[in-house]
């Protein structure tokens, strides 16, 4: 078997065949599921920890600071130390809180981001499951997180939490529209909802270049709306530490708080990778149609590098948003969505459809 970092299809097939050769198909399926589950769990933890570290470093540099620099060289073990601290902290139970829902909420949030991760193609052939309705699935699953936030706010028996949860509910329900519509713009161009095909179609140019003006507008709208959907600044009204102390997770402590914390960063990674996949070609290297030599050179860079590079750039953009802008007020947040983003988006879809109809895209 040849291990190819440019194409994981044969690697996957090799695992599948070797498992099937030693056990019955049912058990092979179960084993594969278990392997994927463990791999994703590890990936989740590593990416989460790294993103927390990255956020702290990035914001430190933006604020003329050094950031974490005590634990390990350049403070790279800081988040691990934090994680250990959070594991050891006491789980405070709130009087008169709804115990079941209170405990359930962090898991719902974690599971929502976990499920959405499975549809993302990291490289050719490297994805857990390749739905033909991939985008629809991701939108549907990732918005489950709001249920967790609402439950957390409700069950905490805390007024700040409740206000935060209600804000979050209004916010996510609204911005779900813009996220969906901006992705729809690209679906109009691509003609498919399957992630692997969307990436494959960008072989001769990423969609943001192919679809030019409407695609760029859609990308900006997606970036804003998805920042709002992940409850990150400047749209972090659900937490709004200067108004609601910590919003919906005020009463959570220890590992349960860590779950919320991790889920926030994971959601950020998720929307960044969706943006990278849909608009910037995912793992597809930068190709310019006609420049065969240039394209070959680009192909030598492994797809995982392309994928993580693009995702990291979009994550950096989202961090730049968070650490630059003041927070919006709840009515301004909804005004932005319903009076600006949604109309722009609707016109943009028409524009894109017209473009596709007239073959004015590249």
């Amino acid at each position, binding site marked *: 078997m040849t291990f190819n970092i440019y194409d994981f299809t044969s690697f996957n097939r090799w695992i599948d065949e070797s498992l099937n050769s030693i056990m019955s198909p049912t058990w092979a399926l179960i084993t594969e599921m278990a392997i994927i589950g463990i791999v994703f769990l590890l990936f989740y933890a590593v990416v989460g920890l790294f993103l927390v570290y990255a956020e702290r470093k990035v914001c430190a540099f933006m604020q*003329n600071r050094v950031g974490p620099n005590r634990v390990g060289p350049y403070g790279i073990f800081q988040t691990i130390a934090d994680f250990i601290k959070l594991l050891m902290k006491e789980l405070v139970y709130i009087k008169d809180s709804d115990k079941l829902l209170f405990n359930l909420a962090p898991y719902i949030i974690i599971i929502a981001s976990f499920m959405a991760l499975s549809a993302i193609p990291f490289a050719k052939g490297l994805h857990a499951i390749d739905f033909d309705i991939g985008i629809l699935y991701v939108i549907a699953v990732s918005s489950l997180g709001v249920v967790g936030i609402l439950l957390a706010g409700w069950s905490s028996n805390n007024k700040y939490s409740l206000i935060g949860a209600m*804000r979050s509910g209004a916010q996510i329900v609204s911005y779900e529209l813009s996220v969906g519509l901006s992705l729809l713009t690209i679906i109009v161009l691509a003609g498919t909802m399957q992630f692997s095909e969307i990436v494959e179609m960008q072989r001769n140019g990423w969609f943001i270049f192919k679809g030019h003006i409407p695609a760029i507008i859609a990308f900006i709208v997606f970036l804003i709306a998805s920042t709002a959907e992940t409850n990150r600044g400047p749209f972090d009204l659900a937490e*709004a*530490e*200067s108004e*609601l102390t910590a919003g919906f997770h005020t009463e959570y402590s220890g590992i349960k708080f860590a779950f919320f914390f991790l889920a926030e960063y994971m959601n950020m990674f998720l929307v960044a990778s969706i943006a990278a996949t849909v608009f910037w070609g995912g793992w597809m290297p930068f190709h310019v149609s006609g420049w065969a030599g240039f394209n070959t050179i680009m192909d030598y860079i492994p797809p995982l590098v392309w994928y993580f590079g693009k995702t990291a750039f979009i994550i950096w953009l989202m961090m730049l948003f968070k650490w630059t*802008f003041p*927070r919006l007020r709840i009515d*301004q947040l909804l005004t932005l969505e319903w009076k600006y983003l949604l109309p722009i988006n609707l016109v943009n879809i028409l524009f894109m459809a017209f473009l596709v109809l007239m073959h004015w895209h590249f």
Partner: protein
Amino acid sequence: MKEIINLPVKDLEQEEYIVNMGPQHPSTHGVLRLVLSLQGEIVQSLKPHCGYIHRGIEKMFEKDTYPQVIHLTDRMDYLSAHINNHAVCLLVEKALEIEVPERVKYIRTIMDELTRIQSHQLWWSSFGMDLGGLTCFFYGLRDREMILDIWEETTGSRFLQSYNCPGGVMQDIHPNFQKKVHAFIKTFKKKIRDYDRILSGNVIFENRSQGVGVLSKEDAISYGVTGPSGRGSGWSCDVRKMEPYSMYSKVHFNEVLRYECDTYARYMVRMQEMHESMNIIEQLIDNIPAGDCSAKMKAVIKLPAGEYFQRVESARGELGMYVISDGNKTPYRMKVRTPSFSNLSALDHMSRGMKIADLVAIGASLDLVIPDIDR
């Protein structure tokens, strides 16, 4: 259970949703407790509860001699510590009819304006933070550090300097003082452009602050909202212009007035005041006359019996020192009219009908310092 079901729906809707904001809350800037009555996100009414950091400073004044009083005034409005000291010294000098040397007046005025700048810098930092822009906080503190270093070199302390003493200042300025102040002004004139770029012109910030927390001029006067907050309502209430003390009658500066009466106006007044303060310092810093740094004072200072009142313009507004002396070395009664205390009383009026987020912005724009309220 049955009773709850049978409650008319209207009653539940009209039921007040009481939220305790504080005493430990990120945006009350200290231990202030605001009891909010909410309807949804809208603030129906607000009751401030203060006293969590009440130290009985006015009672302590009554056992302290006048030089000792000064170090306590530091701890009222710690962000304009020097100006508080200045008020006590002016009061003592007025009562004793002492003329302080010119050099002292220059030094005090420059120090006052440095105090005002650093206070406004910290205000800007926390204002940005209250609106959710955390980066502002670090930019403001970074630039404030330069002033603290200047102070540390001359007075020995970074924050609560106790630099004034009746009749003059404790020590002469450090030889590096002028050079460092020049360096600071040069740097800060560049950095303050960043402040405007990151917050003042920002569309989110404008939406968050314009039309929020309107306080008309009449209300500002009635509530006694002085200082930049009052001037944001178009009330010309600068003590430096009304009753000039130290060098303020001889320097040229504009009293910054805005007439929008909202949070944005109060913000812009403070931003503009930093420029004016730098302007004042630039006029004075190169012309400090030679001479003593203190007038001759008796070892024990006793004010003649009578009543004295001294107003100065602190960074937050009009600071009044009211002393009743019975001829002893300690004041018989000393009352401090602190600006934050009066400014706080208008918070309820300003924030009714606003949202929680607006309340945070209004509170930040009033620039409350809690020890100044509680004393």
